[in-house]
């Protein structure tokens, strides 16, 4: 009987392809699909905030320059990683990351908890020429970031696209995206107030590249790097004992 069934299946091209797809998807159905329904997959983080337009622009630059090829943003549940980088990453911390940038290769260090670790001036100096501050570094130079003006006219559309995939941007945030991007890097401008109002008091509002008058790609990338691991405190209390 089994032999007969197999003989028949093997001689039916479409039927055999369907059978292969069905068998090959078992792994995914068992290991991946259930994560969408299991409660524990994504933790609760009521304090989770969204990326500001400037941080989102920085994130796009991070993707454009391929930073993820050498830097991971994922602290695994291993003792050495927790002791070096801080509390292990939670799924909820990547909740608004589309696409996620966990990465799988570390030529450079993991940067999941880079936010507020170093000064803006260090980030700027380091991106212009990493060897100016870290002589041993093999990271490429990204000097043009400080020269390129940041494109901001399409930021509203970026926010809108994010809101379509579930990031809770309000219509007000989308409408003001361009001004907010400018305001976040120009603390003395009239746009700065709106950023705090819409994105919360904890938002960094400062001249990230040291020049408040010009909005550069450096501003955006440094703003993004300085918020890594800072969108929520959900990861902090759980392993606070490990840190102390």
């Amino acid at each position, binding site marked *: 009987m089994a*032999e007969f069934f197999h003989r028949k299946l093997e001689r039916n091209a479409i039927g055999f392809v369907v059978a292969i797809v069905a068998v090959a998807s078992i792994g995914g159905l*068992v290991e991946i*699909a*259930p994560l969408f*329904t*299991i*409660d*524990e997959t994504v933790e609760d983080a009521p304090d989770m905030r969204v990326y500001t337009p400037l941080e989102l622009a920085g994130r796009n630059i991070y993707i454009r320059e391929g930073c993820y090829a050498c830097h991971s943003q994922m602290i695994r*549940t*291993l*003792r050495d990683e*927790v*002791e*070096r980088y*801080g509390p*292990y990453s939670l799924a909820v911390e990547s909740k608004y990351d589309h696409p996620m940038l966990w990465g799988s290769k570390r030529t450079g260090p993991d940067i999941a908890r880079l936010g*507020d*670790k*170093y*000064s*803006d*001036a*260090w980030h700027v*100096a*380091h991106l212009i020429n990493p060897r*100016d*501050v*870290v*002589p*041993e570094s093999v990271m490429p130079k990204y000097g043009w970031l400080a020269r390129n003006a940041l494109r901001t006219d399409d930021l509203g559309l970026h926010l809108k696209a994010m809101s379509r995939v579930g990031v809770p941007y309000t219509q007000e945030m989308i409408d003001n995206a361009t001004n907010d991007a400018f305001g976040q890097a120009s603390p003395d401008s009239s746009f700065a107030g709106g950023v705090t109002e819409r994105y919360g008091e904890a938002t960094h509002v400062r001249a990230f590249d040291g020049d408040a008058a010009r909005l550069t790609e450096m501003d955006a990338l440094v703003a993004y790097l300085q918020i890594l691991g800072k969108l929520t405190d959900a990861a902090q209390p*759980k*392993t606070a*004992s*490990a*840190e*102390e």
Partner: protein
Amino acid sequence: MALEKRDPVTGRMTTGHEWNGIEELETPIPRVVIFFLVVTILFSIGYWIFMPAWPLGWTYTKGLLGIDQRTTVEQQVEQAKAERAVWMDQIEQMDFATIQADSALMGVVQEAGATLFGDNCAVCHGTRGTGGKGFPDLAAKAWLWGGDPEAIAETIRVGINSPHEETRTSQMLAFGRDGMLDRTQIDDVLAYVQSIGTASEQAQPTPEAAARGSEIFAENCASCHGEDAKGMHDLGAPDLTDASWIYGGDLQTLHTTVYSGRQGHMPAWEGRLSAADRKILTLYVLALPQEKQ
């Protein structure tokens, strides 16, 4: 099922497939392969029972052993902490001078401190603590906020011009840009600074210029840098007479500093490093070997 036939040479059955006269023997799967197949299947059944495995809608089977990666890593970190407690407790409780006098503990500080320094401080201050432009040389021991351990520990805790609530705050004013001094006045005051210290003397200051600069210094700079230009630890104002320059002692850099001002930023480490870790770093930084110039 008449397709299979017996192969006359080996006496085995063939699969019945034929390609240009070549037929395939139906050789049975080796026993050892079957054996390991059965073993892995049995292993997986055991794994389903003991480890987290099967999804059940909103939840999943937790397994009899109750193993969870997150609790595992937390236990490992706790265990490592317990192993370190032998000397960590001593470092936490003893004061700085006692630890410094204890060579065994200082050996531990050197080892743990090197790791902590490498992970957290070295990117700015350099792997040997020698700093760089804008990032103070710690090995030179030209302390901005005082060289006693308590002062250094406090700087590590709250940072300088950091978002920490109790941050140390320090700023060099933009005397030129903000119009407090004009160009000749800046030149004069730099002549004075060059005459009293080790700033490189590219432009050979005349004594007259230095004398004029001395008055400007007394009126504008002495309130922070002190009348003797030796700096003030309370304000984080650097000593201008020593060989240590944060941004550079050449004339051009000095001019930029006086014209545009400076405001460095050291992050606060209280949220990231424990009190004991910061204590180790303090001792490590104090013990950094001075680089030979």
